Each structure stands twice: as structure tokens, then as C-alpha cells.
């Protein structure tokens, strides 16, 4: 696979443990006590969306559902709230996967912005139907930050898959 489909660079195949490790780190980042900081991005949504775009055969809606249940319990949100948002996010990311990777990174970010907004809107929707108060407009800033993080995150998470441009067969390591 290439970084983007228009690139001529071939990447190493992804190691499955790295996918789960990155999701675990994202979960830990989400569990940080940041309730006073509404701008904190939803790291799990970001990393999940990334792997659903890159590896839609490995990471599917089931992973999103499990992570969502964990997030619901950890945030003491309504059970099923994050699960629903993540399942929809995973589905639409995989749906867009074949298209997104033809674009350069900045335009990829524009593709995932509606997905992150949708994930937040779904959560606001299901909670407000059941009588919760509107959490304020700053709730929708987090998706913008997640979108901005798409470019650095792509470099970071693809790093283990790059191979050196000039291969030296005699290199000791």
C-alpha cells in the first residue's frame, strides 16, 4: 500500500499489534481527566477513523462498538451513546476508504471532517432526545481539532510502515 494512492512509494504491510496498540494509547488519552477542557479531541474516534480508512478489512464496526461501550462506561455517558457514534464513524470511514486515499493529506482531512462532526451530532442528538441540556457550541470544536490532527497523525501512524528510500543490503541492522 502507498501513503496515498497517487504516491509511488510502497509501504510495508501494517503489523496488527501496532493497530491495537495505537487504539489502546488513544483510549488511555481519552481517559485522562480532562473534563474541564472541552477542546480535547476524541482520540479514539480519530485513530479509529484512521485505521478504518487504511485497513478497512481488519478494523471494522465491531472494534468501534467495543471501544464505544468502554468509552460510555468510562465517561459515564448513556450506554450506547459512543458505541452508536463510533459504529457509524467506522462504517462511513470504510465506505469512503477507496476514495479518500486518492487525495493529498489536506483534502483527506476535509473528507473526514464531516465524519467527526457526524459522530458528535449523533451523540448530541441521542442525548437531547432523552432530555439532556445542550452542551454548548464548544462541543463542536473538538471535531475541527481532530481534523487538524489528521495530517500529523497520518505521518505518525504510518511511520512503522515506511522503509528507507535507499536500501543498503550490507547494513548491519
Amino acid at each position, binding site marked *: 500500500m502507498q501513503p496515498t494512492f497517487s504516491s509511488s512509494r510502497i509501504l*510495508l*504491510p501494517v503489523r496488527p499489534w501496532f493497530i491495537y496498540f495505537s487504539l489502546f494509547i488513544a*483510549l*488511555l*488519552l*481519552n*481517559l*485522562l*481527566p*480532562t*473534563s*474541564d477542557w*472541552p477542546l480535547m479531541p476524541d482520540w479514539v474516534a480519530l485513530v479509529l477513523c484512521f485505521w478504518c480508512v487504511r485497513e478497512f*478489512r481488519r478494523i*471494522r*464496526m*465491531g472494534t*468501534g*462498538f467495543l471501544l*464505544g*461501550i*468502554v468509552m460510555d*462506561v*468510562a*465517561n*459515564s*455517558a*448513556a*450506554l*450506547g*451513546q459512543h*458505541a*452508536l457514534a463510533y*459504529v*457509524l464513524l467506522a*462504517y462511513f470511514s*470504510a*465506505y469512503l476508504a477507496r476514495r479518500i486515499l486518492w487525495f493529498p493529506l489536506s483534502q483527506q482531512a476535509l473528507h473526514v471532517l464531516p465524519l467527526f462532526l457526524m459522530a458528535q451530532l449523533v451523540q448530541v442528538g*441521542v*442525548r437531547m432526545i*432523552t*432530555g*439532556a*441540556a445542550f*452542551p*454548548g457550541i464548544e*462541543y463542536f470544536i473538538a471535531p475541527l481539532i481532530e481534523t487538524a490532527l489528521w495530517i500529523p497523525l497520518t505521518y505518525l501512524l504510518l511511520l512503522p510502515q515506511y*522503509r528507507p528510500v535507499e536500501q543498503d543490503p550490507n547494513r548491519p541492522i
Partner: protein
Amino acid sequence: MAGIDHAPPPFFKQGPAPLALLIFYVTVSLALFVIDLKYKSADTIRQGVAVVVDPLQRLAQTPGAAIAEAGDYFASLDHLQQDNATLRRAQLDTAPNLARLSHLEAENTRLRRLLGMKERERAEGKIGHILFATRDPFSRRIVVDKGLQAGIAAGQPVIDEAGVVGQVTRVFPLSSEITLITDKGQVVPVQVVRTGQRSVVYGLGDGTMELRFLPANADIQENDVLVTSGLDGIYLPGFPVAKVSRVERDSAYSFARIFCNPIAGVENFSEVFILDPRPASEAKPPATQEEPRGQGGEHRETPSKKPKRAARAH
């Protein structure tokens, strides 16, 4: 060439169609949502998942807690001395009252016995250390480090040194979740100290509260203090709850709009006191006002099993 994936892509064996999977997961999510919010019976699932999530959560808290502790360690001597002096002064302030408290309590018990009244309940409970405030932006809750293992049960009231903080709403094996009185729909029955009027105060969800069901010409002013009335059988009477911050009287409506701020450090504190549930009241009036079907008597519940969540039922 170890890197290249030799397995051919699984063209035909890809599991169920994505749309079918999507419909399945969405249905399960919505079912869980309804079970949790409407029937309030998903707590076993929650407790099961919490067993796994709790250690992770504490792991994630460790760096922050370590930094805070390091900060405490390097707190200046001057600061500590000031703190100490303030505390000593505060203790001296309360000393005369405290010294006479046991005497007064004994006297009160004796007088009440003479009058044939029920003895006043004593406030006992456990100290809980606050782990964190939950990240859910739709509600106002905190998590403390005492859970099922410490004998905490849902419905117990929680106070701090200034007044009422909230109520335990969910209990996990090692932690429990407290809904603050400022949470939207959280209700506390109160009494105005100055006039003795009783009403209920509702959380608004934005850090303030509203005193409802007082007529537009009610005798209430800014800075009136509201204390728990104890009529609910959950909160002991007399704990400060809120202070009136603004009164809007509009003759077009039959009720005044009265806004209050909580007295307890509801949004910033580190330790709280979880009160034991009140014993079942003996002298309840025959139950006619709530459920006309009952003849009184047999459907008397213990207060701990009936947390005051009437307004949260929707």
C-alpha cells in the same frame, strides 16, 4: 522480501455485508441506550465493563496525580505555615460551639423524649476522595474512590464542609458516581431559612439551580439561604444547599423565577463526605398523596432504594 503480504486478498470470504453489520450494531446500541436510560437496568453491564476500565482509568490518572503530588511536595514553607495558621484560627472559631455540641445534643435528646418526639438522626458516613469529574458534557458528575466494597449504595446523600454536594447515583466495585445537585433535573427539597417556606430546587445543568413552585409574590429575597427540608427521607434536614442569586417576578406567570447558586464547592473540591442512608421513617403519614391505590402500610420503601430521581425519569 519478508515485508510483502503474500496472502491473496479474501475476495469472497469477507463476513457479513457492511450494511447488515451496521444495522446490527446500530440496533444493539440503541437497545442498550433504551435499556440504560428508560429502564435503568444496564447497571450490571456497566459494572462488568467498569472492572476492566477502572484500572485503565486509574493508570491514566497517574501522571496528573504524580505532578500534583510533586507540586504539593515543593509547596513553600511559607504557604504551609499560612495554611496552618488559617486552619488553627478556624478551629478556634468553631471550638466553643463544638465543645457545647455534645451537651446540647444530650439536652435536645432528653427534651425530645420528654415531648414524645422522635429523636434526631445523627449524621454518619464515610469520607470519599474525589478521583475525577466525568468527561460527559451532558451531565455533572464526579467519581469518588469508595464503592460497593466500602458499602456505598445508590441514593446516599453527599456533602462537603459547606453544604450538600449531591447524591450517589451509580456504584461500581471500587468507585462510585455522584450526581451533583447542579446536574440538570437533580432535585433537592429545601426550606428557606428566613421564612421557613418549603419548596424544591432543581439543577439547571449550567452550574446554577432554580427554586421552583413559589408564587410570584412569595417572600423571597436575594441572598436567602436554602437548607434541606428533610421531607424526602434522603437528606437530613438543615444542610445548606444554595443561596438565592436572582429573583425575577413577572405577573404574567403564576410562579416567580428564582435562581440560586450552590453553597458547597460543588464544582471544585477534593474530598466529600458520603452520609449513610437515613433509616426508614416510622411516622410516615398514610400514603395517599402519591399512590391512591395503596392503603398505606405495605408499600413503604426504605429511602435508600428510592433515590430522588423523579425528574430524571424521562
